[in-house]
């Protein structure tokens, strides 16, 4: 196996304290997205449109929180892998329940 040290593996900057400026910018983006999702809730997009927009904005916000506040962007492969496992396995659950319910 290569010289990569699995014991201490990270994305390179995980041992640096988080930057105040970056965190402020992320917070501002999160607050802006919150206002956007509330505002769009009052625009007529149809039920499907609302679900898509609501999920997309919530997903973007969750991505910001995980990528920066939860420093997933600075992590190595393993934390990203397990973060992915959580959502992938949830997708398994959703997929098969949907297959059943839609064709029942």
């Amino acid at each position, binding site marked *: 196996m290569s010289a990569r040290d699995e014991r201490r593996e990270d994305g390179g900057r*995980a041992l*640096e*304290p988080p930057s105040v400026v970056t*965190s402020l910018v992320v917070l501002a983006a999160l607050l802006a997205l919150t206002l956007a999702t509330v505002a769009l809730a009052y625009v007529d997009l149809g039920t499907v449109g609302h679900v898509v927009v609501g999920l997309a904005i919530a997903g973007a916000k969750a991505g910001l*929180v995980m990528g920066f506040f*939860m420093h997933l962007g600075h992590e190595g492969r393993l934390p990203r892998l*397990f973060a992915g496992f*959580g959502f992938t396995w949830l997708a398994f659950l959703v997929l098969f329940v949907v297959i059943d319910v839609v064709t029942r």
Partner: protein
Amino acid sequence: MAELHADARLVREPFTDVAHQRAAVSLGMWVFIAQEVLFFGVLFVWYGLFRAQHPDVVAAGGRALDVPLATVMTVTLLVSSFTMVLAVRSAMLGARRGLAGWLAATGLLAVAFLAMKAWEYHHHIAAGEVPVVDLHAASSVVEAGRAQFFGLYFVMTGFHALHVVGGVLVIAWRALAAARGRELPRWTAIMGLGLYWHLVDVVWLFVFPALYLAGHA
């Protein structure tokens, strides 16, 4: 760039150094987060199925909720996530007072969130918007549907609120330890607490549009 607090006394058995401990704690927390995603995921599958089958019931229920209040609650949690980042930063820099202060700020914002939640619960219960379906007493389909929506509402926000309560307790304990103690707490532990707190935030980011923003257009 300020120096990372990398005192050897911060390292606990069986780890060899701070980088090693940090990587292990981070991985452990992400494994924990993965299981939390599935734990809450069950609720969202229930919600999704219910909304697909009864879109009108969810829309009507959403209109009964207080959007401005929920928006303030969302902002409160987002800001508390930011203060938590500063708490972790303080811990990494070895700034004890900064750590105590930012943890206290995070805890206070969390308590504010819970206070708003409690007010909201009280308001709905007083208005008779409760989840329990009494089939014999239900005068109409609409009333039964409303009870079902509030079942979703109370269960989803309730499990989230329980996670907030758990977070507040640990945050308060760590804040007190940092304010009192001579020795700094291990910053890897504060990092783990931070990951948990942000996760609670992420869950709310999905609960908020799912319940409060349904059916306003």
